[in-house]
């Protein structure tokens, strides 16, 4: 099976940014070829996963307010299948790291991530979560959550606009649609040294 372009309803593939890395990811996955039947099952599974990532209710600072805003009336993330935010990490598929992660919070975030059931995804929201943001020179701020947990999508902004939130969620959906459940994984956590 060749590369399939992940489709998002009513938005063209070309309109998304960073298609190259998606294509690279897909090429790596398909390097060994794939069974047609397994591939079809995979497609169904990925369709299900991509359309129903429930987020963890997690916010540390400003971005959290915008996160609430996309759940509310004007932006309404439920339209895209992000129906509920689950307060329990066991039932969440996605963690939107909204806000600064400090040294004291870092072990807690890691623990939350570990508590989540597979498959789990991470979106680093806002400058702080992406790379420390305005607090790079602080003594108590983690310079990007990717130092602690693997990140799937980076979303810059301080705080990002709700539209950007939705865009990052769609990018995540596209990424999920290129995964494999049967026969090969494409997302491994780095082994701790």
């Amino acid at each position: 099976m060749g590369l399939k372009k992940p489709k998002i309803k009513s938005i063209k593939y070309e309109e998304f940014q960073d298609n190259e890395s998606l294509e690279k990811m897909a090429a790596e996955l398909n390097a060994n070829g794939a069974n047609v039947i397994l591939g079809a099952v995979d497609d169904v599974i990925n369709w299900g996963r991509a359309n129903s990532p429930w987020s963890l209710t997690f916010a540390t600072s400003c971005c959290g307010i915008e996160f609430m805003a996309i759940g509310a009336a004007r932006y309404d993330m439920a339209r895209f299948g992000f129906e509920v935010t689950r307060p329990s990490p066991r039932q969440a598929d996605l963690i939107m790291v909204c806000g600064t992660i400090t040294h004291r919070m870092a072990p807690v975030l890691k623990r939350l991530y570990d508590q989540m059931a597979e498959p789990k995804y991470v979106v680093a929201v806002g400058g702080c979560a992406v790379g420390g943001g305005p607090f790079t020179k602080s003594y108590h701020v983690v310079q990007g959550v990717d130092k602690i947990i693997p990140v799937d999508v980076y979303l810059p902004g301080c705080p990002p606009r709700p539209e950007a939130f939705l865009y990052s969620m769609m990018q995540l959906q596209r990424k999920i649609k290129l995964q494999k459940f049967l026969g090969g994984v494409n997302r491994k956590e780095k082994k701790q040294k």
Partner: protein
Amino acid sequence: MDLKKRILEIAPETQFVEQGDIKAIVPSSSFYALAKKLKEDEDTSFDFLLSLTGMDFGDSLGVIYHLESTKYGHTCVLQTSTTNRENPELYSVCDLWKTANFNEREVYDFFGIRFINHPDMRRLFLRDEWNGYPFRKDYDMDSNPLNMTNEVTEDKTTELTIDAEGNVIEKENTLFDDKEYVINIGPQHPSTHGVLRFRTSLQGEIIKKIEPYCGYIHRGIEKMNENLTYPQTLALTDRLDYLSAHQNRHALCMLIEKALGVEIPERVQYIRTIMDELQRIDSHILFYSCLAMDMGAITPFTYGFRDREMILDIFEQTTGGRLIQNYNVVGGVQADIHPDFVNSVKKFIPYFRNILKEYHDIFTGNVIVHQRLKGVGVLSKEDAISFGTTGGTGRASGWACDTRKRKPYAMYDKVDFKEIVYTEGDSFARYMVRMDEMLESMKIIEQLIDNIPEGAYQVKMKPIIKVPEGSYFTSVESSRGEFGVFLESKGDKYPYRLKYRSTGLPLVAAVDTITKGGKIADLIAIGGTLDYVIPDIDR
């Protein structure tokens, strides 16, 4: 009454510094007696500790106290210090003012000053195993790499007391017994409004004791400010309490302008006032939404957010930002208001007046809401003053603490508005204060919006701002209380020490008192009505 004379009578060795705000420098040995006298004497009655700031003077470590009397309205600034940098010890005032409890822990955390007679000398923001004290000038920034081990919470704490011979000894206090049923609410919990952590001791559903743990979003903004120029420091104020972004920045701008003696054009004052009030409405709508959500009603939450978006649209038109606007600058505002600004504000206000009735219909009038909020979480007026819970919480307890009335700034002395004061002190009063304040804010905006004078929106400032030596304090009424900024300047282009009076820290300090005897559900409702913003507490 001459305060100076009074202070000299009690503590004759006191010196006065008259750069910026007048400051009384009191030797540490006589400080506690002076503070006690000033608080308890009828004619001084300094019952409100506005701010407690730790300082590193280079050769000595000290604390600066901003006192205020709620009865007479007079203020004074005291400073005390110790030259012992290895083992600094000062006397605690937490038995005089309850708010000093958390503030002294903060000073211990940042400067390592230990307070004698403080019952609970633990770090407040940083982890127990943190090396060194970050706010000291000689702190090595790289001395604490990221520590990913899980935190171990100690149930023991130390207290320094003085024994019969006058020596300082250490005593051990217990926070929670082994047999207590202690649950962790937070740091990751849907209704702690961020990453606050309460360790809650329960008896069935009833709360016996709450121990708040802060610092999960402590970013060290105050320390970072010491290496930033004045215009740069402005950028971080918006991120303190992001729901009072305008007001926080207003405070810092006002402080620098006051220190420099810059006259601000009237147009700027109008714009700042309107923006502050819009921000207040925005914040109070969010308060309403979050309270409703905490109490299990999701529909009012979305209603609130629907209307909040309209204010954000107005902000966005002019400032380009939704949450963090970076609008005020030293000497004015960043850009002139959008040509449509006046129109959209005037359209919004009547709309919102109507919609506010809907809010009351769906939430305020509900029987269950009355049951959940009335008589729950009562905070007495004395406690409110002692804890320094300014803002809506204080006003719900009958303490008229509105900074806009007490120390008018910008246009507030020229507009007509009522200070909302309730006397019940319960959750419902705290809720109603904020709902009524929105009406008052709209009244203020309506008085100003048609009369914005023509003129410059900014005073041209020098490219490098140097604030003259001295210490300065300014405060504004932010959405959730008195937000103060304290600046110690050495005449440099960087502040020597910049401290923000957090509006939320007193609220968190008061949680234990307010919730005692309540249920878990009450804790959530009380947390909702206290309306704290965690990044503002932790800074």
